[in-house]
Each structure stands twice: as C-alpha cells, then as structure tokens.
C-alpha cells in the first residue's frame, strides 16, 4: 500500500494550464451571454425607431394597423414629408408653422441648458470649495428639493405662470428651466474632486475669484460640463408636458407639442384594433417624428463619449 504521492510526479504546469483554460472558458461564456442579452435589448429598443423611419416613407392613410409595419417600405414615397411640411399646399391656406416648432424646440433645448450650466457650475463651485456660513444647511436644502418629484410642483408652477401673466409666452416656456438643483449637486461632486491647492495656487497667483472660476475651475470641469450639456439638450428637445401645458397658440409649440396637435380631436384606439387619427394622416406624424429625432441622433453620435460618462456619473451618485 503505497499511498504516498510523489510531489514531483504531479504535473503542475498541466494543472495550471487546465485551470487557465477553465477560467478562460468561463469568461467566454459570460461574454457571450452578455452579448446576447445586450444585442436583444438593442434590437428591441431600436425596432420602433426603425419602423418609424420605414413607415414615414409609406402611404398609410388615416388608420394604422399591424399590417402596416414592414421591414422595408414596399412602395417608398416622400408624400408624408411633403404633406407634413405642407410643401404643396395652396398659398391661400394658413400653414402650420413647422419651422417655428423646430426653432422653439431648439430654444427650449439650448437656453435653459446654457443657463443651467452657468448657474449650476457656479453654485456647485461655491458649495464645493468656498467657505461661507450655513453652507451645509444650504447644501441639504438643495438635496432635499431634489427629492420632490417634478409632478408635485407642476400645478403650482402652472398657476404661477398665470399669476405672472406668462401663460402662453416664451417666458413660461423657457424660464422655469433656467436653474436646476440636480445639476448643482453633480457639479459640486465633480468640483470637489479638484485639488484645493490648485485653486489656492491661483489665488496666490493674483487671480481674482471670477478669474479662478473661469480660468481654472471651468476648464477643469469640461467632462461634467459636456455631460450636463448633452443631457440638458436632449432633455429639453424631448420635453413635452410642460410646453404642452403652458402654450396655446401654435406659434409657441415645440415640435413635440406640434406633432401631437396633429392627432386632432378624434385620436384614440378604434374598435377594430386599428389606430385612427381624426383629421390628419398617421404617415405625416411619423415623418415629423423622424425629423424631430434626427438632432438627438446626431448629438448622440457626436457626443457618445460624454453620454456614457454621464451614465457612469449617474450610476456613481445613485
């Protein structure tokens, strides 16, 4: 009975190799699974977009049924776009101001975002690096207001617009978005990570406080500025409910509000399982929606890097 194992006879190298292969295989399985899940997810999310584009080049009519959904347009036509923009409408009828809608969307995507970047970065800097009384209290007050869901303040805000006589003006459309607390929080977190000594070095280097902010703090906050800028733009461009609430004349509509206004009074689900839209055609809507999606898609591809950063920043703070 020789149960002694001769250590030298064990092929350590072989064991190591097998172990290596096993972990590698495991890693491969993991990667493949991840890819499958993510690809499915991507397809599911992209399909509606794709159909939107496809259907915008199709003649659909006033009702929309499941048969209308195709992977490629069988008889491609640009009539939806022409109709949506009313390019061939006779000159004596009053056209819908689609150009204004796009301009308004651009304004609501840009102006509040720019003002947010300015004010939030300043407030974030003050909270992160300056010393003043009640700093903690102010910070917590800001965090607290972040906890209040937007829907809760919607009605008071709406009434306020009436009291200010801002209803159905650009003020109501744009002004409430000019400062947001979420951004203050993100800027504070990001600026806090800058070494204080850099700011103090600038102070000793005879820089005034505004100069420190614009020449040192802002340039070093480029990542968070871009993230906030991109998200602000996309959020503003896609915003729907607030512009819908506070505008009445169609000259103040954003593209999103304008599109839904096309649905008219008879919009809703029909009894036969088809969607019907009273006055206008469904195809026109899809043409408009496709055009509205383009800026966001372009921005996404141009600034992908920052959007991903933004998602990670969001993940970190959450």
């Amino acid at each position: 009975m020789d149960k002694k194992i001769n250590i030298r006879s064990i092929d350590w190298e072989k064991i190591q190799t097998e172990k290596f292969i096993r972990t590698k295989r495991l890693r491969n399985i993991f990667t493949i699974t991840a890819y499958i899940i993510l690809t499915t997810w991507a397809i599911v999310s992209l399909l509606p977009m794709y159909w939107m584009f496809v259907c915008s080049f199709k003649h659909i009519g006033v009702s929309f049924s499941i048969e209308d959904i195709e992977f490629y347009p069988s008889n491609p036509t640009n009539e939806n776009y022409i109709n949506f923009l009313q390019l061939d409408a006779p000159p004596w009828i009053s056209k819908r101001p689609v150009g204004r809608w796009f301009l308004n969307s651009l304004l609501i995507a840009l102006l509040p975002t720019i003002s947010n970047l300015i004010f939030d970065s300043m407030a974030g800097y003050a909270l992160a690096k300056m010393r003043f009384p009640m700093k903690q209290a102010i910070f917590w007050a800001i965090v607290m207001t972040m906890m209040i869901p937007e829907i809760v303040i919607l009605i008071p805000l709406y009434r306020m617009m009436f009291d200010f006589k801002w209803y159905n003006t650009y003020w109501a459309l744009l002004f409430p978005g000019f400062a947001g607390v979420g951004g203050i929080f993100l800027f504070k977190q990001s600026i806090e990570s800058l070494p204080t000594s850099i700011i103090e070095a600038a102070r000793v280097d005879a820089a005034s406080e505004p100069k420190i902010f614009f020449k040192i703090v802002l340039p070093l906050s480029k990542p968070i500025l871009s993230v906030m800028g991109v998200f602000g733009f996309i959020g503003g461009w896609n915003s729907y409910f607030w512009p819908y609430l506070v505008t009445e004349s169609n000259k103040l509509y954003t593209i999103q509000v304008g599109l839904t206004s096309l649905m008219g009074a008879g919009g809703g689900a029909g009894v036969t399982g088809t969607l019907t839209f009273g006055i206008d055609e469904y195809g026109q809507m899809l043409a408009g929606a496709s055009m509205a999606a383009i800026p966001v898609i372009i921005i996404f591809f141009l600034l992908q890097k920052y959007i991903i950063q933004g998602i990670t920043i969001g993940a970190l703070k959450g």
Partner: protein
Amino acid sequence: MAGIRFENVTKIFHQEETRKSVVAVNNLNLEIPDGRFTVLLGPSGCGKTTTLRLIAGLEIPERGDIYIGDRRVTRTHPKERNIAMVFQDYALYPHMNVYNNLAFGLRNLRFPKREIEERVREVAKMLQIEELLERTPRELSGGQRQRVALGRAIVRHPEVYLMDEPLSNLDAKLRAEVRIELLELQRKLGTTTVYVTHDQVEAMTLGDIIVVMNNGIIQQIGKARDLYERPANIFVARFIGSPPMNLIKATIIRQDGLKVKIDDTLLDIPKEKCENLESYIDKEVILGIRPEDIKDAIILGKDKYIISTVDVIEYLGAEVLVHFHINSDKIVARLDSEVEIGKDRKWRAYFDTKKIQFFDPITENSIA
C-alpha cells in the same frame, strides 16, 4: 522685499466631523527678517502649514495681526499681498502647459505680453526647463514638476516666497540636489523666504534662521548651531539632531563646588553653569548630552567614567553608534571607531562635561 511680522496671532479651526476646536497657531509673535531664509520646523500637526497659509492669506486669523513690510495684511486677499507660494503637491494647473503655468500670475497682474515672455524665458533658463515649456504637467517627471512650481513662484518677483515642504515628494537623492540649488537660488535672488519642513536636516542645511514649533507655539528661534548647541527646552533638544540628544536623570549635589550625580558617579560641572544650578542643589535635573560628546574612557585614557551596560552596537561605516543604558535611561554614543566590549557587556563611558546641558524636569526648560 520685505520682512514679515506676526503680532499675537491665533488661528483656531473648528473641525466639522469631531466638533472639536483645534488651536493651530497659538498667540504667535514672530519676526521674519527681510531677505533671509527662514525655516519653520516642527512635528506633524504643529501648525507650520497654518502659519504659512496665514502669511499667504489663505487663512484669516481669529486674533492678532500680520504685517508684510509695513503693510498690515491680516485680512487682505492673497492677490494683494505680493507673495508667491510653492505647494507640497506643486499644484500646477493641469490644463495649461508649462509656459502658461508660469505666465498665469503675470497675466493676472496685467504685465505686458513682451515682459511676460521675457520673464518666463529667463526663469525657464535659470531652472533649465526651457525644453519643457510646451508640455503639460502630466508629461513631466516629479523633479521637473517641482522646478516648474518653483519657476512659477520666481517669475513673479514677489516680496516673499512661501514654500510648504516643496521637496517632500522627491526621492532622497534628488532632494539633496534640489536642496543645494534652492539655497543657491535664494542667495542669488535675496528674497525673503519662509520654508516649512518637518525634516530637521533640511531645516539645518537651508535655514539662516530656524523657528521650531510645537502645538502651535514657538519653542525656539535661532541659527542651526544655536538650536543644536543650546536647545531652549527638552522638546528642541529631542527634535534637533539625529540621533537626538540623550536625556538622563541626574541630581545636583554640593561637594567641592557643584557636581552632578548620575547613578553613583559624580561629574564636574563647568564653572559658568554652576551659578544657575545653585537653586537645584539636592534636586533632580535632566542632564542632556549629544551622542558625539560621549566617548570611550579607555581609548581616551580618562579615569572618570560611568560604567554602563551595552545593548546594541550599530556599525554605520564612518561612525559607530553604541546603545547602552544607565538605570532606565537609554543612551546613544556616537564614536568614530570600533569599541571593545567585554563578555559582561560593560562599557566605560566618558562624558565630555564641557558640553553637558541641564533642564528642569518639570518645566522642561533649559536651566544651564
């Protein structure tokens, strides 16, 4: 150029987490002379950085006044103080290249473009960083960054340089090199310099004047030699010198004049010290002696010695450190040659009594 004066300056920090108050600088009175290299020396947390930041205007004191030259600057913004500071982590502007790092301060002071260019080139040449001007701080080594940080201070031609442990991030060899360069530079520019360090070697080599601090209070101000040879109290005696001064419990007795008794041995006391020790007769004192003032009695052929027990002998090449003890006091002697120790580990230690010092065991201040 200008000197700096502190008048009864107190700085208190209220720590948010612990809700405690720390007196970082306690009723400081200090005159930093014009054009000299002054070193603030002390252990971690003693208030050196705070003192420096008070001069810079990055902290405002709770009480007292600070003057640069004749100007009272207690509450003025740093940019009005005409000082330049080198930070421990260099604090270079990461988004600017070296040229712009150097030019930033001058631009803030609205210097004409041509003069900025001239000054930057001049300083870059002086510090041999001309080839680095286009690089960003990220692309520099530690030593190069340190130079740029120094350059950023020099280019301003300020009245005062403030430096907070500027060499602590360099490796030992580079640190020794830059130390010499720094000294030459200061001699050449002749600008008042206040330098913070916790490294006593650095302080001794650099400082015209050394200010030793502990717990926000100045312990002693003086030249390196003063601090080494006549420490004002036990704290300074321990802090300066490596290995530090030996401190031994002893008693003063009268027997043919004054004598000091260690263990059972009586040592003579130099005449000039006797007067101050009169009031300590038959009382305990702390005797201080530097390691190099303890010698081998046999080699010197002395017949007055203390028999001690050797613990360890450290051989360091040029010198030998003999660690021994008398009763409970651990003592180190620094000898320049090997010593012979018998099997019983007994060693005859000779104390050079001309060099001994005395401290009060309660106040810990020097008495003779």
